């Protein structure tokens, strides 16, 4: 009897375990961790037979968990048939598009994905290499994390410029005209000059990008406002109101410069000083003259 009980309990436990395990296997196949068992391998890649290029299939789990898409399971976006391994050839035909999820999303309306899409279509990338370029060429959706006000500005710039230099590996060759290029690359993003002020996804051809210093360092309003406000906001978030006021880093060299105002300001100042000096000299000479007469 005692043995029977032990066997019964064992059988029941075994049954429960197998049921749970069975469900887990079914669920696990659709879970991110299941996919990452292979896709977290850093070297997971294949060479595309048509283009000859390496296609990276690796996803960094740490970056993924910190990305804006951290709450999405792989299968939320990748809905082709990935059930078998090796995956079927058909999964290569799967096309993904940011607007598939982000169109008319009330939570994300301020990112203006529709405008981004339009700007991207006018970019030099999309116009000259339409087959090769998509959102994912620059933005890896497995690690994409939108910059927040208050993030370290240097990190934002480094990350943003890293996207460009990933392909454009020798930017110094074409930027020799730029005074102190390394300081510029530490201080501003490539897109400050290589996109029109309001459309940061409309990457311009080199010939249409600005090479005018005054676009940032003087009156060109929109670009100046874009840079300046970003810095000012970052300072405020980082340091609080008092420190922000005293240690404000929002100055851009030459921002307040205006040739006409400076010229006339200095001319009027010079004439005023000369006039005051002449008046004083006149008073001195007149008093000398008067004292001689007395």
């Amino acid at each position: 009897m005692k043995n029977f009980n032990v066997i019964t309990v064992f059988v029941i436990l075994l049954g429960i375990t197998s049921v749970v395990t069975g469900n887990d296997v079914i669920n696990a196949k659709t879970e991110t961790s299941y996919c990452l068992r292979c896709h977290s391998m850093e070297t997971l890649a294949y060479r595309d037979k048509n283009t000859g290029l390496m296609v990276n299939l690796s996803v960094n789990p740490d970056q993924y968990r910190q990305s804006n898409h951290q709450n999405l399971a792989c299968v939320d976006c990748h809905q082709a048939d990935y059930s078998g391994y090796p995956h079927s050839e058909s999964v290569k035909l799967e096309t993904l598009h940011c607007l598939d999820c982000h169109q008319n999303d009330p939570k994300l309306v301020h990112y203006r994905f529709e405008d981004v899409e339009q700007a991207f279509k006018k970019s030099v990338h999309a116009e000259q290499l339409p087959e090769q370029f998509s959102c994912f060429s620059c933005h890896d959706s497995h690690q994409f994390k939108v910059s927040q006000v208050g993030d370290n500005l240097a990190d934002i710039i480094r990350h943003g410029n890293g996207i460009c230099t990933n392909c454009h590996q020798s930017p110094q060759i074409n930027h020799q005209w730029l005074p102190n290029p390394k300081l510029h690359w530490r201080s501003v993003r490539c897109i400050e000059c290589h996109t029109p002020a309001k459309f940061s996804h409309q990457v311009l051809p080199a010939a249409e990008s600005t090479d005018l210093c005054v676009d940032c360092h003087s009156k060109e309003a929109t670009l100046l406002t874009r840079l300046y406000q970003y810095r000012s906001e970052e300072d405020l978030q980082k340091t609080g109101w008092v420190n922000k006021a005293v240690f404000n880093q929002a100055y851009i060299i030459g921002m307040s410069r205006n040739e006409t105002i400076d010229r006339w300001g200095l001319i009027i100042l010079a004439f005023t000083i000369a006039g005051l000096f002449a008046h004083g000299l006149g008073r001195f000479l007149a008093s000398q003259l008067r004292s001689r007469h007395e």
Partner: protein
Amino acid sequence: MKSLYLFPLWVRLWHWINALLFITLIVSGASLHFAGSSGWLKFDTAMWVHNTAGILLTLAWLLFVIGNWVTDNGKHYRIQFNGIIGRIIQQSVYYAVGIFRGDTPPFKMSMAMKFNTLQQLTYISVIYGLMPLLMISGWLFLFASDLPAQILGMGSIWVIAMVHLVVAYLLVLFLFSHIYIITTGDTIFSHLRAMLTGWHKETEYD
């Protein structure tokens, strides 16, 4: 010779603190504005110096305005419109002609009014007009992130920068004129002495 106590201690303290801040702001402001060519202060140093002096200038200005409100010093800033045009012409003619001839000044300082009309209008414009414009535009720089991107179709930061710049030039002009005009007292240093001691010595004219 009669002496008048025209400048109480708090007014003198404000005046000299203000003077120091003006010079600090001009030096640091020019270092920022003409960065790379002025060679006065390093850009990074000029930034916090200018910010700090600007904040102190605002505090000093607020205390001065409150002081003028709660003490009778404010009476010197109330314009007497009756006969103002005549007084302006009279004072201007004195500065243009009479001062060279050694004429008796048309205005005599008193406990009731220590500024001649031209001085009074200048100080009112500076303290209640230009300085608020300068300080507001300066503070808007510091909190630029809360501004709309554009004002009247122009980038708002640029508009603020130009207001700040023009007002700064006007105040530099004021500073030079002010330094010169205080030499037109009974002696070259009599006004300066009065602002240091508080006491103005009256000269008896024949």
